[in-house]
């Protein structure tokens, strides 16, 4: 396996030498996925809050739907966004296809159900009386909601980290709607797919190492957050 060891050595050289192309790709990955999670999270948490605290017909089917949607493959989301944004699609005039905004849209759709389901689980675990007490003490609804969310902040943070983990590593939707354009829409996963298809394994391994390091960091952060949550 001279191929594996040689490529790995080259990969670490690339990482350490600050190869500009490689770090541009890493930067695009983070900027796109961070923006996606910042757009998706507020709405997802409000939806989860309503699902956890309000009682209305259709609540259970909605919950089931969000749970089911977590399993939708990224390529299906990609295909949907592609068809919507294509010139022959309903939003073709916006000319969004093959831009970072299209990637963000795909990632928002990908992480939204996961965020709702996990936030709902966190909010559900909290005693309903927290909300009722806050309301009886005269807090307006939005203030009561903030209080409730503060109580389950660790659970919500865990949901955010899980959502971010899903979209930073997905390749199917980004490749389809982003187009893998160098310096614009090429992120870590699509770059790995490309470098491998070129037989350039070193770049692929280097980028894979960045993702792996990130996954480790996120999981350790998650573990710490949950540990603190249990102690509190």
């Amino acid at each position: 396996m001279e191929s594996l060891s040689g490529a790995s050595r080259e990969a670490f050289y690339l990482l350490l030498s600050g190869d500009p192309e490689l770090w541009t790709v890493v930067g695009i990955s983070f900027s796109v996925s961070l923006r996606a999670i910042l757009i998706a999270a507020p709405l997802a948490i409000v939806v989860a809050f309503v699902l956890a605290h309000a009682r209305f017909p259709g609540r259970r089917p909605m919950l089931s739907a969000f749970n089911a949607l977590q399993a939708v493959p990224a390529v299906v989301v990609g295909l949907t966004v592609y068809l919507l944004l294509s010139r022959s699609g309903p939003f073709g005039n916006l000319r969004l296809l093959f831009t970072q905004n299209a990637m963000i849209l795909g990632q928002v759709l990908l992480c939204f159900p996961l965020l709702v389901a996990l936030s709902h689980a966190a909010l559900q675990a909290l005693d309903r009386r927290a909300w009722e007490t806050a309301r009886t003490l005269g807090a307006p609804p939005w203030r009561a909601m903030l209080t409730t969310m503060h109580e389950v902040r660790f659970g919500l943070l865990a949901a955010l980290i899980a959502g971010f983990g899903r979209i930073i590593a997905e390749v199917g939707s980004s490749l389809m709607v982003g187009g893998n354009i160098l310096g614009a829409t090429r992120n870590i996963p699509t770059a790995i797919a490309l470098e491998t298809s070129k037989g350039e394994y070193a770049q692929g391994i280097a980028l894979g190492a960045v993702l792996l390091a990130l996954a480790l960091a996120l999981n350790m952060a998650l573990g710490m957050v949950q540990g603190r949550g249990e102690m509190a």
Partner: protein
Amino acid sequence: MRNCVALKTLLRASVLTATALLVMATAYAQSGVVRLSTTTSTENSGLLEELLPRFEQRSGLRVEVIAVGTGKALRMGRDGDVDVVLVHAPAAEEKFVANGYGVNRRQVMYNDFVIVGPRGDPAGIAGTKDAAQALARLAAQRAPFVSRGDDSGTHKMELALWRSADVQPAGQWYREAGQGMGRVLLMASELDAYTLCDRGTWLAMHEKLALRVLVQGDQRLYNPYGIIAVNPARHAGLQYTGAMALIDWIISREAQELIRGFRINNEPLFSPLAVRGP
């Protein structure tokens, strides 16, 4: 406890099955299977479907096709993951042989590239005879151009054309997609952009695209395919005799006539190189 035993039995059974499958797969690989890595253009055009069944019938061998870009196809040969490669990048092929990765390179056939772009041709390159001049005009007007950017044979051809046009393509107008030909054509169509395409993929896809052929017929757009056996001295367990049988057959009169007769939408796609003339 019972459950636990059942689980262990299941685990053992699955390990056994997996081992058996692995052994079978290994034996299979050493029997009559030739692995061919080739470019997407030969696979997607349907040419291989026309050629390979005849070879399999004659030789009793089975050919497994792995269709990737030229860069990857050669890399797979270098790593000993395939027995024979069929690609289109003469300079890279020569290097592949010179480095000792492959042996017995033969010219098989050629087709050509075309420069395609928006139907309205805003940059006005339609009918230009000189491909490099056409690209230079695109660069001068910053007309959007989608590049394969994936180290494929088509990408190498495109870079060679930019070099002969004396242009360093870079900037907002030049988009390196890093994807296969079909995807790049769809992107060019969506973005009202120009691109370089092999005629086979163009013929197979043009009905779905808002593009048309603008430049063709330049000598420089000529695209020869070569076939090379992977050097059996570098890796154990290669199907070298099978690879040589395939090479011998593909440059035979019979296969070359099949290549000449191959049509998409009634248009010929490839011209044989090993056996010329009728």
